[in-house]
């Protein structure tokens, strides 16, 4: 992990308010595993003050770049969306753990919602290269918020979509699609990233079906490297380590995650 000075090679809108930035980042590209993220300083002028954490969405080892895919929904992502080619930024990474590999030959199912899709794209493409069968379920509010086919295709052999308003794919939630998958030829491993409520629902479905599930969690972050203790997630009591120690009640998502076995997380709330 280093704080790499990276150059913006491209930064384009790929869906409604979704941007893909390609960053020349040879150090990070050589090391980033699926599920890991970077923490990017989008402004040196003091506003926004904090960095923006973004999952690695793709890498090119030879060319030495990484891609991040992000939605413009607040000050940090807005500033980033206006940064042009050639600009340099500080980019800390790769950060966090990554997805744990499935057992050999396992049928895998990747579930992504909204800004949770990017890590799935990198993970799916790696799984495919390792000859795992991959089904990708993608949920979004509407057609405009769905990423184009060419971005999803490399990540899965089967891509299924759901939208809240039915404007693309099945009408309804991505968890409806997962329920169908679990009811049929159930996957051996589920990987999920998306809004908290969606991840909770996915975790519950997988638990019912006794399918292992890993979730990539999000929480507001300052440092991304474990020093602020801000990105807390409450863990199940039996996962909290040494009995009687309250210290391990909350995990730090940035260093203990962002990927957690769904059963370790205390979902209630």
């Amino acid at each position, binding site marked *: *992990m*280093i*704080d790499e000075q990276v150059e913006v090679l491209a930064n384009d809108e790929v869906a409604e308010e979704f941007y893909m930035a390609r960053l020349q980042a040879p150090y990070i590209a050589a090391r980033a595993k699926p599920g890991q993220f970077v923490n990017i*300083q989008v402004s040196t002028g*003091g*506003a*926004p*003050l*904090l*960095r923006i954490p973004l999952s690695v969405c793709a890498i090119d080892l030879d060319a030495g770049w990484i891609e991040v895919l992000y939605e413009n929904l607040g*000050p940090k992502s807005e500033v980033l969306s206006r940064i042009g080619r050639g600009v340099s930024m*500080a980019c*800390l990474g790769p950060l966090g753990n990554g997805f744990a590999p499935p057992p050999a030959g396992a049928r895998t199912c990747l579930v992504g919602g909204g800004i949770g899709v990017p890590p799935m794209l990198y993970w799916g493409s790696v799984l495919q290269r390792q000859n795992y069968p991959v089904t990708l379920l993608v949920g979004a509010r509407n057609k405009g918020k769905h990423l184009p086919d060419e971005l999803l295709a490399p990540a899965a052999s089967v891509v299924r979509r759901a939208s809240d308003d039915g404007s693309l794919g099945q009408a309804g939630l991505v968890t409806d699609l997962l329920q169908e998958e679990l009811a049929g030829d159930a996957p051996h491993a589920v990987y999920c990233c998306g809004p908290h409520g969606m991840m909770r629902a996915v975790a519950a479905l997988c638990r019912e079906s006794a399918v292992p599930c890993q979730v990539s969690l999000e*929480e*507001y*972050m*300052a*440092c991304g*490297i*474990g*020093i*602020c*203790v*801000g*990105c*807390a*997630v*409450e863990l199940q009591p039996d996962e909290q380590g040494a009995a009687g*120690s*309250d*210290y*391990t*009640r*909350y995990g730090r998502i940035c*260093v203990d995650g962002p990927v957690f076995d769904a059963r370790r997380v205390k979902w209630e709330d």
Partner: protein
Amino acid sequence: MADLKVDFAGVPLQNPVLLASGTCNYGQELLPLTDFSRLGGLVTKTITPEPRGGNPPQRIIETAGGMLNAIGLQNPGLEDFVGEKWAFLAGLQTQVVVNIAGFSVDEFALTAARLEELPGIAALEVNISCPNVEAGGDNFATRPETAAAVIAAVKRNSRRPIIAKLTPNVTDITEIARAVVDAGADAVSLINTLVGMAIDVNSQRPILGNITGGLSGPAVKPVALAMVWKVAQAVSVPIMGIGGIATARDALEFIIAGASAVQVGTANFVNPNAGVEVVDGIQAHCDEHGIDQLASLVGSLQT
């Protein structure tokens, strides 16, 4: 090359820049990203007698020029610190100040006593000013009597230099500073965070799990600087200046106002090498301005 050495209440610092409590945890995570041997020192995240889980999330939110935090002193507790964290810290080529807190005068005193057993601790910073253990931010440092009681008890139990960490959420910080100095504090550090709040207007709920939090970062620098200046006129012990320091210029403002040393806090989250860059910048400033001894700048403000 200007000499940046500082004697801070008996602790020799190679330069006046430390990392602030709660913004560098117990050092490990920063090892790949900064060079501790270039720093004056680091201050550990607060240690309480018992382990603490801290506050429910959301614990952080950015604000204009700063951030709110409500971590709630999540820490492994005294025994785990002594047993585990210290081994790593003791090996660092820099001064380590251990920051302690408790929920009663006795807890502070016991913690200080137990830490006597660890050789190598440079000083104790006594956090009587954490605003995040209950909503609203009340704490020992808001009243001279309670502040003094804690410091006196710690002082009785420790031979190390005692730095009292003060809160800015008071009417007259010089009154508290005088009280802790009278109670035996060898130095004061200020400021801890300002009590603040943020609300989600759609859900009509506080953004932080603890309702209120502590404001830090560049936004608070002017407030911190004014307090350091006032305290420098009120007490004769050394002052550790804290609050919004991100650049060498910021650090120099505090030093000129009367701080013998400074701590870099929130800036570490933005740039994990911020402390070393502040050191380099101070060196460059002194060299450019023909300042031989940094110590000569301390309290040099001409009013």
